[in-house]
C-alpha cells in the first residue's frame, strides 16, 4: 500500500474525527453533570452557520470561530434554562431545539446568502507545521501538519481527563451526575454546575461546527452538520464517559469513515449504501460490546442521574 494512501487514510480519519471530538469532549461534561444535552447538534449547526457568516463578512477566521462559540453557547443556554431551571424533559427539549435550529439556520442562510450562483466561501484555517516533527515519515504529515484547532482538540483530551479526575471541580461535576442531592448536601451549587457543564458543551459543539466549515470545506450548506452532533453523543457513550476512551472512540469512527470512502474509491463491488452504513454499523456493534461494563459511571447507561432534573429541596 502506497505512502500517499496511508497518509490519506490517516489524514481523513483526523479530519472526520475532529468535529466529533470537540462535540464529544463538550458533551461528556454535560452528561457527567447529569444533563443529556441532545441540543449538541443544534449548537454545532448554529456554530457552523454563525462562524461561517462572520468569517465571510469580516474576512477574519478567528472572529468567525468566536462567533461560532457564541452561537453554540446561545443554543446551550436555552437548553440549560429549560432543562435545569424549568425542569423540562431533557430528551424532548433537546429534540425540539434541534428542529428549531435546523429551521432557523436554513432561514438565516437563505436570507443572507440567498440563491447566488456561486455560493459564498472563505479560505480555511491554514495548516501549522510543528518544527522538527512535521517531517517524520507517515506520522509527520498526519499529526504535525494540521490547523491549530486540531492540536487544541488533541490537547483537550488530557486536559479534560486532568480536570475530571484530578481537580476538585471535576470531582464535583462527576458527583453531580451521580447524586446531585449529595452534592447539594455539602453546600455545592448543583444547578450552577449543570449550567456550566451544558454551556461548555455548547461552546465545544460551536467550535466543532466552526471547524467543519472554517477548518475543512470553507462552504456552508443547509444542515451542513448532517447529524454529527448525534454521532458525538454516541461517541460519548461508546467512550464510556471517559475523555481518553472518547479519543479512541472518535479515532475508531473516523477510521471507519475514511475506510468506507477508500473502499468506494477503489471500486469494491459492494453497494454504496452498505458501505455508507458501515461506520454506524460498527459503532452500534461497539456500543453493544462496550455497554456490558459500567466502568467508572454509576450505571451501564451512564451517570446515575443522567436525564433526571434536579429540583432544589424546600428548606
Amino acid at each position, binding site marked *: 500500500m502506497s505512502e500517499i494512501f496511508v497518509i490519506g487514510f490517516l489524514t481523513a480519519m483526523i479530519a472526520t474525527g475532529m468535529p466529533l471530538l470537540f462535540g464529544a469532549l463538550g458533551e461528556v461534561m454535560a452528561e457527567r453533570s447529569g444533563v443529556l444535552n441532545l441540543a449538541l447538534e443544534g449548537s454545532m449547526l448554529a456554530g457552523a452557520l454563525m462562524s461561517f457568516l462572520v468569517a465571510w463578512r469580516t474576512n477574519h477566521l478567528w472572529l468567525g470561530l468566536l462567533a461560532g462559540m457564541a452561537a453554540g453557547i446561545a443554543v446551550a443556554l436555552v437548553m440549560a434554562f429549560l432543562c435545569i431551571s424549568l425542569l423540562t424533559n431533557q430528551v424532548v427539549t433537546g429534540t425540539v431545539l434541534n*428542529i428549531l435550529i435546523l429551521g432557523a439556520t436554513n432561514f438565516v442562510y437563505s436570507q443572507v446568502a440567498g*440563491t447566488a450562483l456561486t455560493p459564498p466561501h472563505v479560505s480555511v484555517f491554514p495548516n501549522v507545521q510543528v518544527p522538527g516533527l512535521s517531517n517524520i515519515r507517515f506520522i509527520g504529515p498526519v499529526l504535525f501538519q494540521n490547523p491549530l484547532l486540531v492540536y487544541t482538540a488533541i490537547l483537550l483530551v488530557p486536559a479534560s481527563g486532568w480536570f475530571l479526575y484530578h481537580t476538585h471541580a471535576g470531582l464535583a461535576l462527576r458527583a453531580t451526575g451521580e447524586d446531585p442531592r449529595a452534592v447539594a448536601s455539602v453546600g455545592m451549587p448543583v444547578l450552577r454546575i449543570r449550567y456550566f457543564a451544558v454551556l461548555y458543551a455548547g461552546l465545544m459543539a460551536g467550535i466543532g461546527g466552526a471547524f467543519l466549515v472554517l477548518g475543512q470545506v*470553507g462552504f456552508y*450548506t443547509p444542515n451542513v452538520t448532517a447529524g454529527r452532533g448525534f454521532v458525538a453523543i454516541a461517541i460519548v457513550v461508546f467512550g464510556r464517559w471517559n475523555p481518553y476512551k472518547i479519543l479512541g472512540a472518535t479515532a475508531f469512527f473516523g477510521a471507519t469513515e475514511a475506510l468506507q*470512502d477508500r473502499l468506494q474509491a477503489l*471500486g469494491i463491488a459492494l453497494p454504496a449504501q452498505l458501505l455508507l452504513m458501515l461506520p454506524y454499523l460498527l459503532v452500534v456493534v461497539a456500543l453493544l460490546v462496550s455497554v456490558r461494563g459500567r466502568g467508572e459511571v454509576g450505571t451501564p447507561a451512564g451517570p446515575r442521574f443522567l436525564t433526571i432534573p434536579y429540583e432544589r429541596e424546600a428548606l
Partner: protein
Amino acid sequence: MFHRSWKKSRVLGLVLASCLVFAVGAVGPTQVHGATQLKVAMLFSAPVTGNSWDGNGYRGLQSIKQIVHAKVAYTESVQLADIQQALRNYATQGYDLIFGNGFEYGQPMSQIASRYPKVKFVAITGASSTPSNLQEPQFAENQAGYLAGVVAGLMTKTNKIGCVGGQQLPFVVSQLEGFKLGVKYVNKRASVHVTYTGSFTDVAKAKQAATALVDTGIDVLCQKDDNGGPAIIGVAKSRHIWAIGDSQDQNNLAPKIVLTSAVINSPAVILAIARQVANGTFKSGKPYYGVQQHAAGLSSYHGLVPARVAKRVAQVETLIAQGKIKVPLTTKPTNP
C-alpha cells in the same frame, strides 16, 4: 431534489423544520392584479441554494416572472408527506401552474390533478401516469453525462477518472453511468470509479470522498453531488487535477480547473412550459428534453480543452442528436 437520508435524526428534524420554513417560503406574492396575469408556483424539496438543482428551478421560476410577467411563489423544504397539502394550498389559491422540482412530485400530482382541472401541474422528471393537466418533462442526464465522459476520456493522462455522486437516485446514477459509457467510447483503457456520499448537503463528506478518489491517482474528477459540488471541485483545485462540474457552468468555482460542466437546462424548459400555459398549448404527457432539444449538454470549455477534443465532443453530440449514438438509460449503478 428528493432528499432521503437514512439518518433518522435528520429526517425527523427536517419534517418539523419544514413547517417553519414553509411558513417563510409561502409568504410570496399571491395577489392578482389583472385577470389575465398568470400565477405560477413551484415546490422544492430542499432549501434553495444557488449552486444546485433547486437553484436551477428557482432561476426558471424567476425567468417566468421576468419574461412572462407572471406572479410567482414558491415553497422550499417540502417534505414528501406534505406535498399534497402544499399542492392543494396553491391550487385553491387560484394558481394556474404549479411546478414540483423533482420526480417525487409526480405521484402526488397524479393523484390530485383531476380534482383541479383548471390548474396545470408539472412534475419535473416525474414518472407517474399523467392526467390531462399534468406534464412530466424528462431530462437526458445520461446524455449530458455521456458528453462529459467523452471530455474526461480524452483529457485523462493517467487513465484513471473519478466521480462523486450524492444519493443514488435515478437522475444521479443515469448521469454517472452515462459518463462511464462516454469515457469508454473514446478511451477503452480508462477506468472510472464512482463514490456516492449518500447526501446532497454533507459537504465535509463530499470533500472526504473526493480526496479518497484523488489519492487513487485519478486526474479528472467529476461530480453530481448538488450542494457538495463546490467542495468536490475545491479538492480538484487544491490537488491540481481537472474537474467537471454539474447542473450549470461551474467554471467560476475554479476557472483553471473546471473543464466543462454537464448541464441540464431546466430553467429554459421551465420557462417554455409556462409559455405553453400562457398561450394555451400546454400538453400532458412526458416530453423528452435531451441533446437534440438543446436541453442537455455541456457548458463552455473556457479555453481549457484543446481543439481536437472539442471537435470530437461536437461530433459525438451530433451523433446523439441524430440518434446514431443511443445512450442507454441506466438507473442502477454498475461496477467498474
